């Protein structure tokens, strides 16, 4: 039990990346060492929404960048959450001292595309527009064309990237095989029903623990399960063929999912840790072997596998269970991209473009994957890891990429682009919390949530919509 674990970034902003590592570093700028900082190098301030071991990794990559690429000095600053970095960036732009690159998450893609600073200009530049067809910027190869398809379909609109994909994950299932073997549970559940049956067997066995399964009450899991049913979260093809102006929070797919979830909780199979977006609490339950099943972000595959090694139990990763009898859906990505600030001078802008591509070059993409469990973001990185035999040695690391590759390319599985999505996500998790804690009827509660969410979207579109 460490304080860092309690104070993890299970923040209200809806960030998809749990912090479960104990290593934390200062939020303040971490000046890279080295003499090149003193020269005439163009400073590239990069704001990253991590403060833990992932920030350390980023700092190491920045040091390498500063050494290998002439004329630039990338300076990394860590933030506690995506929203902190975003708010700080907007204020910095309005006060005339913007950073060059800001790290912002997938649910806020619409807002990042729309965001306008006080002088009426867009906050972020359109990445492909400023790359302008170049295949190499400041000597760093552009890797956009190499990005794996799940991320490219999510982050592209009309075939063009507005930001550079970086940390990308999917929701997957982790199993404590040792516990399940002890309880005589065989196989790996692939559907809701199979998971429920496995839990029934497990809880009736002598090896039963407090409960069977847990996952954070985070809207991201809800969105996964809607996509796995092949259903939309918003109109206009999930906001892909035009600005979404209607959300479907009370859809049948949604009600079915929450009803199933409530059933698991009512039977004592699911443990609700009592707070929304509780990455740390759910992680700890699995790590302490209180539950044999955990639905979680693949971003922590490395750490969770390691928990099994230190705790003496076998951790297996598997696809997220889907609704029985539904096969046309698929899983979604989660994570974040790097946005280049609009209106930078040319050399700073080129440095920023070089940096975001350097961060995802084959070597760094593979290292990032091995350090965390976020998927290798480029095809070359996947191929290199495969060739090295890394996936054969670490089968858990393969699951998220495979799950995303198995996902068909439909609007439902591409993920929703919705304005004010972060606040709408909170409306969803609030509703689910009422269902789990107060025993509200899922259909009624989701109908109320639909009204609130729709109002939030209407307000957003009033500010940003055409006209």
């Amino acid at each position: 039990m460490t304080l860092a674990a309690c104070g993890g970034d299970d923040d209200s902003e809806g960030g998809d990346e749990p912090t479960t590592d104990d290593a934390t570093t200062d939020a303040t700028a971490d000046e890279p060492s080295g003499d090149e900082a003193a020269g005439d190098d163009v400073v590239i301030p990069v704001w990253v929404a991590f403060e833990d071991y992932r920030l350390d990794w980023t700092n190491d990559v920045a040091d390498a960048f500063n050494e290998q690429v002439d004329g630039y000095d990338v300076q990394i600053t860590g933030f506690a959450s995506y929203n902190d970095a975003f708010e700080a960036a907007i204020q910095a732009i309005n006060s005339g001292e913007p950073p060059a690159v800001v790290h912002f998450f997938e649910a806020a893609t619409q807002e990042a595309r729309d965001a306008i600073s006080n002088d009426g200009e867009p906050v972020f530049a359109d990445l492909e527009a400023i790359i302008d067809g170049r295949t190499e910027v400041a000597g760093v190869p552009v890797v956009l064309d190499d990005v794996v398809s799940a991320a490219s379909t999510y982050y592209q609109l009309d075939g063009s990237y507005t930001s550079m994909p970086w940390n990308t994950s999917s929701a997957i299932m982790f199993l404590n095989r040792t516990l399940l073997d002890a309880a005589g549970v065989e196989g790996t559940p692939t559907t809701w029903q199979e998971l429920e049956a496995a839990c029934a067997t497990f809880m009736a066995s002598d090896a039963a623990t407090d409960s069977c399964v847990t996952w954070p009450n985070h809207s991201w899991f809800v969105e996964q399960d809607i996509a796995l049913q092949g259903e939309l979260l918003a109109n206009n093809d999930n906001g892909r063929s035009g600005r979404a102006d209607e959300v479907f929070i009370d859809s049948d797919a949604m009600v079915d999912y929450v009803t199933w979830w409530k059933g698991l909780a009512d039977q004592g199979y699911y443990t609700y840790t009592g707070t929304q977006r509780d990455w740390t609490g759910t992680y700890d339950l699995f790590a302490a072997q209180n539950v044999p099943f955990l639905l979680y972000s693949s971003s922590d595959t490395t750490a969770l596998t390691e928990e099994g090694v230190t705790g003496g139990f076998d951790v297996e990763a598997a696809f997220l269970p889907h609704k029985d009898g539904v096969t046309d859906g698929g899983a979604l990505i989660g994570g974040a991209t790097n946005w280049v600030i609009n209106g930078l001078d040319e050399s700073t802008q080129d440095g920023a473009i070089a940096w975001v591509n350097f961060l995802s070059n084959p070597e760094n993409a593979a290292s990032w994957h091995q350090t965390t469990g976020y998927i290798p973001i480029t095809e070359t990185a996947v191929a290199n890891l495969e060739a090295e035999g890394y996936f054969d040695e670490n089968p858990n690391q393969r699951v998220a990429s495979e799950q995303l590759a198995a996902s068909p390319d439909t609007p439902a599985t591409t993920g929703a682009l919705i304005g004010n999505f972060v606040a709408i996500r909170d409306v969803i998790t609030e509703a689910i919390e009422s269902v789990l804690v107060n025993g509200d009827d899922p259909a009624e509660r989701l109908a109320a949530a639909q009204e609130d969410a729709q109002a939030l979207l209407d307000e957003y579109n009033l500010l940003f919509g055409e006209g």
Partner: protein
Amino acid sequence: MPILALIVLLVAAVAGAATLSRVGTSVGPLRLLGGALGGGLGALAVSAPLDFCTFSDEYETKDFVFGLVLMALGAAAGIAAARAVLSPAKLSSVETSHGVWRSRWLPWVLLSPTLAVLIVFLYWPALRTIQYSTKLARLSNPKRVDRCTYNFTELVGPSRPWLALVLAGLGIAGILAGVMLDRRGMRATHNARSVVAAVSTVALLSALAFVFTDDYRQVYVVTMIISVGTVVGGLAISLGIAFISYQPIRGASVYRTLLIWPYAVSPPIAGILFFVLFDANTGIIDHWTTSLLDTGLADYRTNAVLAQGVVILASIWKTLGYNLLFYVAGLQTIPPDQIEAAMIDGATAWQRFRHIIIPALSPITFFLIVTNLTYAFFETYGTIDYLTKGGPAGQTNVAMYEIIQVFNTGGDLGRGSAQSMILFAGVVGLTMWQFRSTGRRVSYG
């Protein structure tokens, strides 16, 4: 300007004139004019910046009523100001010839650093908050859409209007009765006076609860529960501990110092500490109960009463040091001869505590009620964020936490500002009560 708005302004002006005409013994035209100006301008000051939008057909009845209430409050403030200006200054009767500045500008120069700080960090942000509270506004877009009073009135939706009316009526009746009792100066009814005051306060506060929509009523009720719990529990416990630690025992100064330590801990740290203690899955107490009693600790994060209890407990612990500091100091100021006299008269320890010490400490208690309530309103956010995140299902979602949530998740400047204005109104009410009560119901020995 709509005709209706003009009529309301005229009514406010007439009411102002009428009020002030009854204040003095002579009816001067100046008084009437002052009252009319105070009332009219006061009402105008709150409605003109809104462009009289509450009278427009675009908005609902509740916006209209809310606008009237605002105008009434503005008029009341204006009339009070006019009254203060026109009444013969009471202070001038006291001879304060020393320390009066001869120069007109020198005091302003000397005050300017303070004023500059106040303007930059207090008045200017406050003004911006008021502006934002009437807009649909978002951090990521400079565009603003006028919303009139919608940010406020969307929180209003009496589900049981008759109950709100009955309670409000009871409260107002209580206040009137209290005023009557005060006027007649019936000393024998001292206890009745306190009962009337308590009943009317509770009735008014409850009436307010039924004015809000279900969602915001929960925020209001939770804020009340956690604030009252923190203040009442905190003061009782700290007075008890102060009384015990005040006893002359060897080493008292050392442990008195130690008792004050929690004051130095920040609210989020208090939250983390109590989480580590009480968490049902990984907490220390759960570990003990599991190993000693073979039963796990109940999960406070999924039980409303326990969640509120833990938040209150953590807040009490956090404010304990501060309260102790004042109570220990207060106890030292009670003249020992009073207590000795009581002992000679045969008063038991409890009687001495109840009838000598508690009344003697009443100014300190009163001061602490105000500071602790302010703490409970504004500072418990950090504790709650680490303990419960406002859950389960909003049962520890106090007003301040709600404001931060509203702003943080949606970057919603308008709603956040409107809700912080509501909290601000609560604190203004509290401050007015403080100023009125000081020197009236509080005995300074």
